[in-house]
């Protein structure tokens, strides 16, 4: 209940403006109005706000142009064009995919011939690593570890480590799931890089390391022999395994 003896506290300018703009509830509006009428300070705030709002309103109105006659027809045409045009790229892609697929099925078509020739070339040249894009770099960081940077982390990678002395090889991998098969003098790893792009494989000094991808020999290094792939950032660079035993390599 309102105490008539206790005057209402000053309204802030936001509330006075809200009252001016008729944005207050009727109850609150009545309270603010009563207070503003009896309070010189709040009346001054109200006059200031009214003056600024009037200056703004007059200035804006003075620069107004006649409202153009809008046309819903023009809006509808523009919307219709957009409805028609928007699905076009997707439809074009679909048509292209189907057309390419159909063309590849037709015997004797140029596309089919090209695909066949390409497959033949690929199978006839195993020396060219098909996995250059998959394993972008393979390097030796120390005599007993290699780093593999994988371009396509989804692919699995097979690593074979051979030690002629017949000792057990222990292998440690980082940031990758690996299925290891460790035998006497022989270690085979099937690595599932997952989302990891850089793998580090640690092992004791071995005589030979082979890295296979999808059954293809990606790299093999025998003791003391440095083998290099094509140079460049996107290919295997080199690997050197420092031998500790001068034994014979396993076939």
């Amino acid at each position, binding site marked *: 209940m309102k105490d008539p003896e206790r005057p209402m506290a000053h309204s*802030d*300018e*936001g*509330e*006075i*403006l*809200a009252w001016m*703009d008729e*944005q207050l509830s009727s109850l609150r509006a009545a309270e603010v109005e009563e207070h503003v009428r009896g309070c010189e300070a709040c009346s001054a705030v109200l006059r*200031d*706000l009214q*003056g*600024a*709002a009037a*200056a*703004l*309103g*007059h*200035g*804006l109105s*003075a*620069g*107004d*142009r006649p*409202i*153009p006659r*809008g046309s*819903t027809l*023009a*809006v*509808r045409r*523009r*919307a219709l064009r*957009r*409805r028609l045009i928007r699905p076009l790229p997707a439809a074009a892609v679909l048509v292209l995919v189907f057309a390419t697929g159909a063309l590849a099925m037709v015997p004797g078509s140029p596309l089919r011939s090209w695909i066949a020739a390409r497959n033949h070339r690929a199978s006839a040249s195993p020396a060219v690593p098909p996995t250059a894009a998959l394993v972008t770099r393979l390097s030796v960081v120390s005599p007993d570890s290699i780093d593999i940077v994988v371009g396509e982390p989804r692919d699995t990678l097979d690593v074979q480590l051979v030690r002629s002395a017949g000792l057990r090889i222990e292998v440690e991998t980082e940031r990758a799931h690996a299925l290891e098969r460790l035998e006497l003098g022989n270690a085979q790893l099937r690595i599932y890089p997952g989302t990891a792009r850089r793998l580090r494989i640690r092992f004791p000094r071995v005589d030979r390391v082979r890295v296979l991808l999808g059954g293809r020999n990606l790299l093999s290094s025998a003791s003391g022999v440095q083998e290099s792939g094509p140079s460049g950032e996107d290919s295997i660079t080199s690997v050197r395994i420092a031998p500790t035993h001068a034994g014979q390599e396993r076939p």
Partner: protein
Amino acid sequence: MSFESVYERHFAPLFRYVHRWTRDRDAAEDVVQETFVRYLLSTVPESEARPWLFRVASNLLRDDRRRYLRRRRLGLKWASGRTEMPESNEPDRAIETARVGDALRSLEERDRMMLLMREEGCSYHEIAEVVGVAPTSVGTLLARALRRFKEAYEGP
């Protein structure tokens, strides 16, 4: 309830709002038409059309204005900040318009947007929805914006 009724009801205040922001009739017509095209392609109910239209128009004006207007080769008018000359032949009126325009342009975007929406009779709830503030703070923000406008309008 039809698109025509929404257009009929909101075209004038929306055009005035956009034109007062740009002071470029062609750009204003284009922005307003684009806003209604988006409304037509949307599923916004008529009861929520007004704040939605103001919000889309404001976004076109504010966030996308460079890209949007570059596409329509109107960028120079915006970049230079030139305003149209008032149609009135009364010099006092033209000066008044220019003064108010300069004062408005000196404000921050949010202040300008709120003041222009208030001039179009938008409720504090609608302003809050478009600007993205609490409805209870709109009065205070508007009062501050008005005070800043007055300072810029009256000059040092």
